């Protein structure tokens, strides 16, 4: 099978998750709670983003043994995170037959210039994005699925909303452009021209884009669905809340019935306390969202991106 076929199939595979919720879990017990609530997949990790923010230190791929114990516990797909650019962590995750790999900014970056060449793998990858340019850079590298970066572990939806609106706005902008203008637009957003052209033609991304990073309530999840997301990741929002099983179920149902305010009102009732969260993200000392290989924000010294020459 050709590499291009594999990419198309992986994109199709990710479409099966549409309209669903993917939950962060740290134990087989939590994975079972997520599955029983109707999650379409779980993300197996040792520490959820809220704890990674608090603890600091280097955050790495989780112990394969811990991931496999979760895989054993549920029948839904299991995802796991590798550090940005850490292709050997990805090789290990592929070797233990994980269903999807998240090349995640929540873990410490392993390479500040390059992301993983995801075309070298058979397993599908999901990556974070803040805007259309970043989305298309990841797709070019082989990502089969995207999610907004948001700001994980904060229980604050503001960054996920910003990122989703940004992707949608730029897609709409492309719709109104003359085809002769696409070359410069591609250069401006630092994205491959062919993918820009395909987005202009279809009016949408070639892969699914989920909401992630700060979702804490059924209303948060439904808002991002109304903004055009294909599904939702919930990390710290569930197992840092007062009643995880109830909240997990409510968020799953909110993603299905995202257009029905009466149903959403019912789903928002009596689901226990939401995670406390962080309200002022700009003052917070942890910033996951600006971690991108090859970007000046990621290398921290404001020097131009080494690969900014598309």
């Amino acid at each position, binding site marked *: 099978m050709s590499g291009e076929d594999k990419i198309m199939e992986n994109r199709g595979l990710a479409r099966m998750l*549409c*309209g669903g919720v993917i939950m962060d879990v740290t134990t087989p017990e939590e994975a079972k709670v997520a599955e029983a*609530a109707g999650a379409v997949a779980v993300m197996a990790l040792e520490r959820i983003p809220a704890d990674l923010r608090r603890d600091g230190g280097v955050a790495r791929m989780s112990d394969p043994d811990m991931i496999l114990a979760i895989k054993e516990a549920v029948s839904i797909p299991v995802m796991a995170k590798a550090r940005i650019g850490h292709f050997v962590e990805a090789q290990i995750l592929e070797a233990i037959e994980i269903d999807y790999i998240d090349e995640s900014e929540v873990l410490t970056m392993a390479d500040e210039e390059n992301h993983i060449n995801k075309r070298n793998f058979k397993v599908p990858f999901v990556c974070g994005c803040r805007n259309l340019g970043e989305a298309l850079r990841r797709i070019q590298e082989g990502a089969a699925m995207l999610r907004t970066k948001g700001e994980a572990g904060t229980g604050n939806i503001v960054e996920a909303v910003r990122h989703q609106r940004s992707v949608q706005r730029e897609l709409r902008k492309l719709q109104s452009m003359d085809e002769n203008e696409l070359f410069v637009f591609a250069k401006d957003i630092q994205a491959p021209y062919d993918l820009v052209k395909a987005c202009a033609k279809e009016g949408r991304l070639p892969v699914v884009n989920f909401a992630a990073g700060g979702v804490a309530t059924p209303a948060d999840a439904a808002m991002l669905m109304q903004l055009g997301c294909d599904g939702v990741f919930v990390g710290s929002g569930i197992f840092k809340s007062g009643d995880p099983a109830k909240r997990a179920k409510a968020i799953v149902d909110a993603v299905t019935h995202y257009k029905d305010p009466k149903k959403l009102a019912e789903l928002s009732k009596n689901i226990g306390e939401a995670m406390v969260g962080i309200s002022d993200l700009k003052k917070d000392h942890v910033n996951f969202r600006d971690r991108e290989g090859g970007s000046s924000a990621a290398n921290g010294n404001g020097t131009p991106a080494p690969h900014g020459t598309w």
Partner: protein
Amino acid sequence: MTSSGEVVVGVLALQGAFKQHVQLFEKIGVKATEIRTPEELAEVDALVLPGGESTAIALVARRTGLGQELIGGFPGVVHRNFFGSQLGSFSAMLESPLNVSDGDAVSSEAAADTASSKQYRAVFIRAPVLIEYDDAVNVLAKVVPHKESQEADAKVDAHEPIVVAASHGNILMTSFHPELTDDASWHQYFFNFATKVIKAAPGGAAPASSSSA
């Protein structure tokens, strides 16, 4: 029905690749709506059950009051995840269903003989197949399994073509995902099928289609 008497298709939109189904129906000018409640279900003439995470769909369906009525009766035995795990997903060329007159079985070998006929690229993902079925079942497509990718099953000869699309009564099912390509042939075929079933049995049961979940 639309005001001009055309069949309206519903796509179960609890979870899964429902958007793509709706887009493909719209592409061929068929009215299609997303179905999330029993009330919405009552408004349509035919229903598509899209591929998705079947565990999640079943759970959400039960909580939505769409549980039991969606499970149709098909006289056959289905082997789930026949071709192996996710890394064993593949695509195969089939003859376009629109080239086939009613009742004719199509196989991928037959398609190879008629080079001029329009080919359809079918995408299989952790696909189930029909391994035993009643004589009344209308076989629509077969493929020869990949030797390496399938998990051996004593009931199935690895070299025999196996059934990946079939119809019976008011149900049409495919093991592949017709919503994952730009080709709307199977959506057109389903619309024609639904129209015929409804004309034959006015007031009767609505047709349903299921792709692999």
